[in-house]
């Protein structure tokens, strides 16, 4: 054996599984869930999403052992600091693959991912498409404010044409992304749209996304009062706008219909645009594992490896 400086402990069989929650335990309360006071600007739409996340956890009776909150970089990605629970503040744009790593290796945890439009659709655009197509089981809430806020007003991938920012003083010239279309085209299995000014709707969408077995994506308009004030007034009845829900007769399993709703001019439709059931990446990997493990049933890990080594003698 070559030089090594750490001892290899003998193997001990400890399966990864969360201890069963105490039967007597109640769901977490908002008080237990609130951590640092958010650093967001007063009036920011993200406050509403945070409050409703607390409500969702409370309502779902999740315990601290059952979920993780993950985020990338941006104003909204500060989210995990404000939640008193296991959380991750990862790097810009890569929250989804990180979260997938948790989801695929820890079936006992529900993974919530939070981020903004820059994180999701610009620097993380590639991961958005691929996590959607792989249908990794997790809940992704994007707080879209159509602007880069943390870096103080640069054009974002969802900034509308003509939006004046520090990087486009004459008005944005690049055509914006339509996140819902993008998600549907990528193969997302759950696509919903909401706005932070309608709390009940936000909660309903987050809850439906969480209960979806697969990649649950919620696009949530969340106004940046500092750098894009009034961006979503047209979707807010209190500001004279219109909150239009997805038509009652919309078939959320119809991709074409979903795509059509997604393409409606702003303020567009709010609600579940698309919702289908397809086996998740998690389920497919588990199925592969079941098949492979059946072949080595009853063997200890070292004995499985020994079979490979026997063939290399």
């Amino acid at each position, binding site marked *: 054996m070559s030089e090594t400086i750490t001892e290899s402990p003998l193997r001990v069989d400890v399966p990864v599984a969360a201890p069963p929650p105490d039967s007597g335990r109640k769901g977490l309360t908002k008080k237990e869930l609130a951590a640092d006071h958010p650093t967001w600007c007063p009036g920011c739409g993200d406050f509403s999403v945070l409050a409703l996340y607390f409500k969702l956890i409370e309502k779902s009776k999740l315990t601290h052992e059952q979920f993780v909150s993950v985020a990338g970089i941006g104003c909204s990605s500060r989210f995990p600091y404000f939640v008193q629970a296991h959380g991750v503040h*990862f790097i810009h744009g890569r929250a989804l693959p990180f979260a997938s790593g948790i989801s*695929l290796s820890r079936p006992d945890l529900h993974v919530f991912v939070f981020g903004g439009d820059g994180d999701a659709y610009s620097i993380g655009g590639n991961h958005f498409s691929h996590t959607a197509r792989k249908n990794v089981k997790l809940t992704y809430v994007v707080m879209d404010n159509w602007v880069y806020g943390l870096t103080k007003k640069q054009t974002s991938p969802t900034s509308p044409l003509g939006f004046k920012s520090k990087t486009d003083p004459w008005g944005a010239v690049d055509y914006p992304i339509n996140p819902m279309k993008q998600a549907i085209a990528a193969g997302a299995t759950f696509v919903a749209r909401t706005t932070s000014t309608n709390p009940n709707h936000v909660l309903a969408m987050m809850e439906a996304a969480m209960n979806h077995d697969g990649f649950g994506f919620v696009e949530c308009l969340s106004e940046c009062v500092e750098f894009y004030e009034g961006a979503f007034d047209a979707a807010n009845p209190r500001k004279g706008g219109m909150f239009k829900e997805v038509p009652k007769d919309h078939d959320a399993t119809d991709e074409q219909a979903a795509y059509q709703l997604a393409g409606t001019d702003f303020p567009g439709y709010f609600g579940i645009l698309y919702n289908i059931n397809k086996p998740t990446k998690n389920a497919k990997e588990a199925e592969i*594992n079941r098949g492979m493990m059946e072949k080595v049933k009853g063997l200890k890990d070292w004995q499985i490896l020994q079979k*490979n080594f026997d063939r290399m003698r």
Partner: protein
Amino acid sequence: MSDTMTAASPGGAPKVSRINEAVIRIAGNSQDGIQAIGGFLARLAGRSEQEVMTFMTIPPTISGGPSIFQVRIGSGEVLSAGDEADVLLALYQHSYEEHIGSLKKGGIVLFDADHVEPKPEWQKDYHHVGIPISTLAVEAIGGTAKDKGKNIYALGLIARTFDLNVPKLEKLIAERFGGRDESIVKNALVAFHAGYSYDTGNLLETFKFTEGPGKGGHQVVMNGNEALGYGLIAAGVRFGAGYPITPWTDVMELLRRELPKYGGSFIQCEDEIASISMAVGASYAGRVAVTGSSGPGISLKSEALGWAVMAEVPLVIVDVQRGGPSTGLPTSVEQSDLNIARFGSHGDSPRVVLAPANVEDCFYTAIEAVNIARKYNVPVFILSDQAIATRIEAFPEPNLEKVCQDISPDLTMVPDFTPYDLSTPDGVVPRVVPGTRIASGKYPVATGLEHDEAGHPTGAPKMHQAMVAKRRKKLLALQATVPVPKVHGPPEGNVLLVGWGSTQGPIREAVDRARAAGDSISSLHIKYLSPLPNRLDNIFSGFHHVFVVEMNDEGFYGYGQLAGMLRARYCDPRIRGINKTDGLTWKVKEILAAVKLKLSSNGRAAKTV
């Protein structure tokens, strides 16, 4: 074929010589299956308690192109794939012309007379034996087989020439081709026996290996990528993520195939950044996970690597080095990623770098890397390279029951948790992973922002300074446990050759050869490259010259990447570089010639080497 003892050959029959080692180079095209012949020879050597080392070149093209496979088999110690071949098997004119130079004077060139026109001027230096291999292979197994059986036919020829163990080879052939169509094994065996029974008359002598010392126990035969992959499994790794890139891909394919048997997964990601992110995510979630790549992919992983350093999440990163920069030489070897492994990523981001010395070491280094990562909560690089990844060696079978380990996380409730506690003496804080209940109700956020002890973001100058120091201190604690490497040869003398990674074998062989000729030379192999072991200066002080032998560029100042680090640490002008960047492994004679040149250019007496 050193120490040849020629036995008298009675009655004009081909003579039989006893040898204790041989270097066989097979040159053809990549689609001829010459790697398979080499593989059979290597595995046979392993089963015969011989030592073996192989060397191959593969064209970077998708299919086709000249390729070689060299096997060195010995009854004694085999440290390199050999500088010169004893036997060259040339399948084409280009193989013949390109590789005759690698054959030693008086060596045997076995060539396919269907494709090779021998050159008269070479006839006196090399023993030419022409055999219509293509025609005979087709004749043996029937017209439909085309070129398919050629390699196995040639294996038969080699088996006859070296009096190899036929039953063992037959078994290997059956194992290799078995499980598929019955006729494939049958055809292969027919081709093998046709080659084996080809009568070369008096043209060719037969060689017989002397018995080795006998090692007892089983040997296993595999290449470095396999050893690394299986080592990770033995270490308890059950999750990995990667993106295909040569020569790392074999490791990821192996893990993708094998991990499900253990309930684990290896995920092919959309890109290199997603791969490391996913692996860090899985590591955060509990068990140490792995990602890997080769140069270009490692560059892309740098930012997420820095996060793992900052957040103190363990990770194993495999870098199977190839020629760089950029796309570089995808199928050639270089040791030019030491700097990126050591320093790549922004900010002060200390991490661990280990480099395996040979195929066996790939297996154990993988376990070592996992254990360091989980003990110190830090990313650990395994710096392999193209040469070690593809070369085949035989080594004593590990005691798997003993080495296999379970690294499942402990999810038992804890009373309280301070993720970045500054009060521990060595800076190491055992992790509490998600899914764990914390009685105090205070939960940690793993973060890439500078943070206080609880994990809250802070820009406080003193806190940043304290946390930077904490991350450094952890690895100083590791450094205190790193063994001082042993000098190969006497601890004092004229020249010390220092190497790392896959060059250990050829460097040792160079030392052995030069010492046998009376030179004062020793060598030192450094496996722990970050942090470096302590007290290397004590070793250096025993020598007049310290030459760091590396497969990377000498840079602006005359020394390579490890030499640069050693100089930075010890400010010792005796440390100089012996470097090359031709994309091939070091030959023993190249190392010795470079030492000679360095000594003479130094103006000092070059008498000792």
